[in-house]
């Protein structure tokens, strides 16, 4: 094959637009590109969902704390919240109140271990809430760490393919080599395109989850303190009242 012919034919054969790069790529490189593009879509879906979820949760917490510290009766608040599924602080509050109520509803009034039980319930609820907030953040972490590698894999396959083509055509003109390498590097570009936002968003969302968690724990500690004070008061009252009654 005449090198001049190849050099002339090369620009015609290689369309350097994005679609052209995609269609000329090797099968494996194509798969990698499609996978990375899907990962990018998924990753951004998670980012959007989580951002909305956290802002919603934060607003709900603000509202709940306003109501909680407004001096409204806890019984009334519980009655309002009990009817619908609660999240965040409300969930913690409802869980603790439910345990509290149960302790008084039964025939045997067991006040001795009530603070421990409330603490347990609070812990479990916080854990559940945090788990809910954390869900799917690992996907972001995975995409962020593995994306460049997947893209690099596509690039290596593409460059291998391109080099075998060079060997076959026995021509090392840059016009022959360049398109293959460009399409191979396109895979790494998509990998980075998916991974960079994933890593950034993962760090940001993770820190927000941490903030929310500490807020939940802070509220739980406060509420637990309030409830245990109440329990102590009730024990003192009850200890006197039976005697009084007797």
């Amino acid at each position, binding site marked *: 094959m005449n090198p001049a012919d190849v050099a002339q034919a090369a620009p015609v054969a290689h369309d*350097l*637009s*994005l*679609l052209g790069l995609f269609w000329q790529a090797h099968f494996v490189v194509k798969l990698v590109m499609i996978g990375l*593009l899907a990962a*990018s*879509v*998924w*990753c*951004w*879906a*998670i*980012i*959007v*969902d*989580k951002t*909305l*979820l956290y802002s*919603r949760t934060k607003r709900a917490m603000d509202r709940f704390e306003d109501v909680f510290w407004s001096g409204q009766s806890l019984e009334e608040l519980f009655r309002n919240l009990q009817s619908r599924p609660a999240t965040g602080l409300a969930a913690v509050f409802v869980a603790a109140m439910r345990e509290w109520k149960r302790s008084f509803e039964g025939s045997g009034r067991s006040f001795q271990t009530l603070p421990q039980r409330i603490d347990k319930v609070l812990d479990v609820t916080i854990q559940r809430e945090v788990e809910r907030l954390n*869900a*799917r953040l690992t996907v972001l972490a995975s995409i962020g760490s593995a994306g460049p590698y997947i893209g690099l894999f596509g690039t290596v396959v593409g460059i291998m393919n391109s080099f075998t083509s060079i060997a076959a055509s026995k021509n090392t003109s840059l016009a022959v080599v360049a398109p293959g390498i460009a399409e191979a590097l396109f895979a790494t570009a998509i990998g980075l395109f998916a991974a960079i936002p994933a890593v950034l968003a993962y760090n940001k969302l993770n820190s927000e989850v941490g903030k929310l968690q500490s807020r939940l724990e802070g509220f739980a500690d406060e509420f637990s303190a309030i409830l245990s004070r109440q329990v102590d008061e009730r024990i003192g009252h009850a200890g006197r009242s039976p005697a009084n009654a007797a």
Partner: protein
Amino acid sequence: MALTWKFNTSEPGFWVSGVAHAALLAAAMVGLSSVAEFPEAQEGIPVEVITDAQLSQITRGETNAKAPQPKPRAERVADKAELKDPGEDKRDAPAPPKRPAEMKVADKEEPVAAQPPPPAPPTRSQEDKAAEAKAEAEKKMIEKAEAEAIEKAKAAEKAKVEAEAKAKTEAEAKAKAEAEAKKIAEAKAKAEAEAKAKAEAEAKKLAEAKVKEEAEAKARKEAQVAKKLDMGDLKQFLDTKDKHQSTGSTGAEVQKTASLGTATGSAAKLTPSLRDALIGLLVSQIERCYSAPIAASGGQVTAPILDIRLNQDGSLSTDPRILQAGSTSTDRAVADAAVRAIRKCRQFEIPAKFVPYYADWKVLNVQFDPPLS
């Protein structure tokens, strides 16, 4: 929490992300479809900075130039130098054929020759005229001779008739006389006939000579004309359809190879010792012409530095100048005296060994230490 395909206001992430990616891809396809090409690379030109002095002394060519092409082998100097431009074709164009001067010209070929000679072309030479005049004179002479011969013959006839009539009339009285007369007449007639024949032969010979001369004159004249303005040749020359042989040598680029120059790269320089020797020679020659001013007869004198510019034969190329002299009037006087001495010397003797270094001693700054007189 699985991804839901239905649009959910609380979790719109998948749709938002999908739409955003689609939009981004579309934008990239529109925006990145045209590939920006690199601008044409301009090659840099290596530049070497040299001083004036280096330029004046430079003899160096291009260090990495190709060796000049060897001249074709020649064992003796050609009698006729034939110089050709590089683009000239190897083949020599044949010279248009030329008619030799003595060659006779055929009438049909020659428009000039086709003209009949009698009308006498105005550009007839002296020789032609003379020849023609001579021919005419000869013709006249022949005609005259013929006429004479005819007249003589007529006279002879008449004489004969008269003699016969006389003889008839005188009758046979004088038979002897008659016979004698007849004999005389016959002899006379015979002589006359002979003279006539002779004249005729002569005339014929003359006529032949004339014709021959005429033909020769014609041929000579035609040869001359052919030599002067050969219309046939010109016509043939103009009719040649051959293109110009040379169109100039062409190539991918104009050849600009510099000459190789010398190995040293700059003009030969005097070694310090040679320079000292030359300056010493000059000073000793100046001293010979120098007469110390009276003011400098005693005491210390600052030696002036003089600017001497020389030609290759040792003569002064410009007037000498004082570059540096002491501040006192004595010093000035000494310096002026030195300049006068140089002017007086006018021509210095430079040994032949210094000639190759002329570039270096063209301008000399000589410190002239005046001799203590």
